[in-house]
């Protein structure tokens, strides 16, 4: 108050700074903003390990397709990308990329590129793509702060932002170089949930519209928009069931449904899913149910009870009858699209194993083990159940939403390892609530204790101290909130121990996250590193082989390889491939699998049909690279056998149920094209000191047939460590 009386407009800088820094509000603002800026920088920097160790390169397989699409978008413009038909993949079918891709990521990278170029920071497009993910990770941490603030208070928000910045479950898919959908989709998911909780808390149309625009970004970025589209109706149902339905919820959901649905249907890949697909049935059903409910409430208010009762009975009969009939007609006439295979797996985990081998073969779709939880989340696995307890202790609309989100996300993360990514924000927010509540109650008691001892020391008499202490407690703002909690008498040591325990837990969490990021999640997988220090060896075989393809084959050459490598070959080798990672056509993939699994003559016929010029295999026996095609071969047999059961039988490739390429291997196995292409010329090589020739370093034994001869193919290129092997398909023989 005194500063207002003595206000001087010409105060010096030092004086102004001193005046600001002595006010509690500005101290708090300074601490908060410094913390948030450090969190942002931490989230960005921790993801840079692979850039510092290797170089700024795009990782894995899928990001190469996204990179190629972004190049198309930036160089040829929006409409060329929107209507793109790609003739360079899935020869001879081609792929309608414009209608089968989620464009959110490409738009984001293109906008960042155009903006940075406009501001004369001329960053290369590849670098923009590499650093998109860390940039959005920082943004996600900021949104986590806002979300925590909306759920509870500012302290929870700060803890949530700090935890979100380095949680390994999120880092695994958003390191620098991982230019994949999840990089922006998790940001979109957290923003949608935050804006949805804001909309429910405020109940205005404007907040609903904001949530709908965040939903548009999510629908444009990732297929998990289906998760949001079912989670929010589920939340509405639960709120109605536990008796917390309110007009705010109605306004929020109606606005969200209308605006969000229309916006999401603008994406070509989504099309009319929102009105036609089974996966989004609850999305529409809840909208209809809400309107019906509000109509009933309105009619009851207008009609009076008796008339309303008669009307309700008649209407209920009519509605149930027509609704059931409509659903039956739609399903029978085939208008309602069935649930796609990927989403069936989430409800019935054994479905994919029995019916869709392609979905079951992807390593990311395997179910989760217990160790993945502690590895990806560390102390958050302990703090999350406590957070659930705190949410149940004091139910608000926002915490109920968080509980529903967390329970569904945790269940789905148990079914598929990849969905640990979606569960990570849920774990972070729950843990933030529990950690912040623990810290808040401990520090509140410490402050009360300090205030009590202060009062005891300053008051002259013991009675005056006893009388003043409760008054002091009542006066202090913190105590007013926790009226049910009383500090244990003279126990500051326990509270200091709680603070110490939390500090140790956070330090251990930070150490773990940094180690995990550095060791496990920063490998670009296109460049392999083995050895330490002076014995470090970099294996750059993939890029060597793809650039060989780019420079030494004719421009319209067609490459046949297993679908894993399709995106990389088109992006780096710039050549047409037969199948790639999009896996949209199972029969085409099965044809390639059948070719790889048949003997050379049969395979040659298939390759002539498909117009193949070069066959590419990945072989790890010389270098010890274990994710090679021989290890994936059984999946080729299974997928090929699924479509051509008369030609390919899995039992022909197994010796008593044992998968082996040694001399115990079956003749079908040892004569298959894959075996020949992998082990051509390998029988004469000595790979380890005291083993014979042809010792396969991945399988751990000598191969069966060391004398491989090829009739219809010629070896064209083998990379330095034999990891990539390319063979040219010979033309038909001259008969005359």
């Amino acid at each position: 108050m005194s500063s207002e009386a003595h206000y001087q407009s010409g105060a010096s800088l030092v004086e102004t700074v001193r005046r600001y820094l002595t006010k509690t509000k500005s101290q708090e603002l300074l601490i908060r903003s410094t913390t948030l800026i450090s969190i942002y920088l931490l989230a960005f920097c921790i993801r840079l390990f692979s850039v510092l160790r290797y170089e700024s390169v795009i990782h894995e397989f899928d990001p190469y397709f996204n990179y190629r699409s972004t190049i198309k978008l930036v160089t040829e413009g929006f409409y060329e990308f929107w209507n793109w038909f790609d003739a360079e993949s899935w020869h001879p079918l081609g792929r309608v990329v414009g209608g089968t891709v989620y464009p959110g990521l490409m738009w984001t990278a293109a906008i960042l590129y155009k903006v940075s170029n406009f501001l004369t920071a001329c960053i290369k497009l590849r670098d923009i793509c590499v650093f998109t993910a860390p940039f959005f990770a920082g943004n996600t941490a900021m949104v986590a702060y806002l979300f925590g603030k909306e759920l509870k208070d500012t302290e929870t928000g700060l803890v949530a932002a700090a935890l979100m910045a380095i949680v390994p479950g999120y880092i695994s898919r958003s390191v620098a170089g991982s230019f994949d959908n999840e990089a922006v989709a998790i940001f979109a998911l957290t923003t949608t949930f935050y804006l949805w909780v804001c909309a429910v808390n405020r109940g205005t149309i404007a907040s609903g519209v904001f949530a709908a625009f965040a939903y548009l970004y999510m629908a444009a970025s990732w297929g998990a928009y289906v998760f949001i589209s079912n989670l929010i109706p589920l939340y509405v149902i639960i709120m109605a069931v536990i008796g917390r339905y309110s007009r705010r919820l109605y306004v929020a959901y109606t606005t969200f449904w209308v605006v969000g649905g229309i916006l999401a249907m603008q994406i070509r890949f989504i099309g009319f899913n929102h009105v036609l697909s089974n996966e989004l049935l609850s999305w529409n059903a809840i909208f209809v149910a809400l309107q019906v409910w509000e109509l009933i409430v309105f009619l009851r208010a207008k009609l009076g009870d008796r008339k309303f009762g008669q009307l309700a009975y008649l209407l209920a009969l009519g509605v149930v009858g027509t609704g059931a009939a409509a659903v039956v007609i739609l399903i029978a006439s085939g208008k309602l699209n069935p649930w796609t295979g990927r989403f069936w797996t989430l409800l019935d985990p054994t479905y994919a194993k029995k019916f869709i081998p392609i979905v079951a073969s992807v390593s990311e779709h395997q179910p989760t083990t217990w160790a993945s939880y502690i590895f990806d989340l560390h102390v958050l696995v302990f703090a999350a159940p406590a957070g659930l307890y705190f949410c149940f202790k004091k139910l608000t609309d926002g915490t109920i939403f968080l509980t529903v989100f967390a329970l569904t996300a945790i269940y789905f993360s148990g079914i598929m390892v990849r969905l640990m990514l979606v569960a990570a924000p849920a774990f972070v927010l729950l843990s933030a609530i529990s950690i912040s509540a623990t810290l808040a109650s401990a520090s509140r008691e410490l402050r009360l204790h300090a205030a009590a001892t202060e009062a005891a020391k300053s008051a002259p008499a013991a009675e005056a101290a006893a009388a003043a202490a409760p008054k002091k407690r009542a006066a202090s703002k913190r105590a007013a909130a926790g009226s049910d909690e009383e500090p244990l008498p003279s126990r500051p040591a326990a509270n200091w121990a709680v603070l110490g325990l939390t500090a140790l837990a956070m330090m251990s969490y930070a150490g773990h996250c940094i180690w995990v990021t550095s060791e496990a999640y920063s490998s670009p997988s296109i460049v392999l590193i083995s050895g330490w220090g002076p014995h470090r060896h970099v294996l750059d075989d993939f890029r060597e082989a793809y650039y060989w393809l780019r420079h030494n084959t004719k421009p319209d050459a067609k490459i046949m390889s297993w679908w894993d490598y399709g995106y990389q070959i088109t992006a780096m080798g710039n050549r047409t491939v037969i199948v790639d990672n999009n896996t949209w056509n199972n029969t085409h993939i099965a044809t390639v699998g059948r070719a790889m699994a048949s003997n050379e003559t049969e395979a040659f016929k298939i390759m002539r049909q498909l117009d193949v010029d070069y066959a590419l295999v990945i072989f790890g026996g010389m270098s010890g690279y274990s994710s090679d095609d021989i290890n994936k071969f059984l999946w080729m047999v299974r997928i090929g056998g699924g479509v051509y059961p008369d030609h390919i039988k899995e039992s022909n490739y197994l010796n008593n149920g044992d998968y082996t390429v040694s001399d115990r291997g079956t003749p079908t196995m040892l004569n298959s094209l894959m075996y020949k292409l992998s082990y051509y010329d390998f029988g004469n090589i000595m790979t380890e000191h005291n083993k014979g020739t042809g010792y396969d370093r991945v399988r751990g034994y000598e191969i069966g047939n060391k004398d491989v001869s090829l009739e219809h193919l010629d070896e064209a290129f083998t990379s330095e460590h034999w990891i990539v092997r390319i063979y040219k398909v010979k033309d038909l023989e001259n008969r005359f």
Partner: protein
Amino acid sequence: MGKFSSLEELRPSPMFVCTLVLVSYFFVTAGVAYDIINEPPAVGATTDPVTGAVKPMTFMPYRLNGQFILEGISGGFFYTLGGVGIILLDLSRDKNKSTLFRNFFMGMGFFLTLLSWAACMTFIRIKMPGYMR
């Protein structure tokens, strides 16, 4: 159904639902979905190289994406126990209980949290010898 006069009374209390949620958390984090799909044995077996005797092996080594049933259950158990420890720390602040209970809860809370954390760290070091090196 007869003894409930309204639907309201059927509604379970929040703490009951919270207990159910913690039980389901235990099952999910124990890797029950993995157990159902891949059907691993309850414990694995290693042969001792010197004597040739077959010893049980509790943790599937070197792979984060494989587990035995008992290993998963013990992991999930300690996750839930750690959560219960933090819950106990908060329960100790309830002023309606006697001081003995509150001290007991606080002590148990510390003990359970630290025990779960230490156990999980030990487990992960057994499973992945290269952890934190």
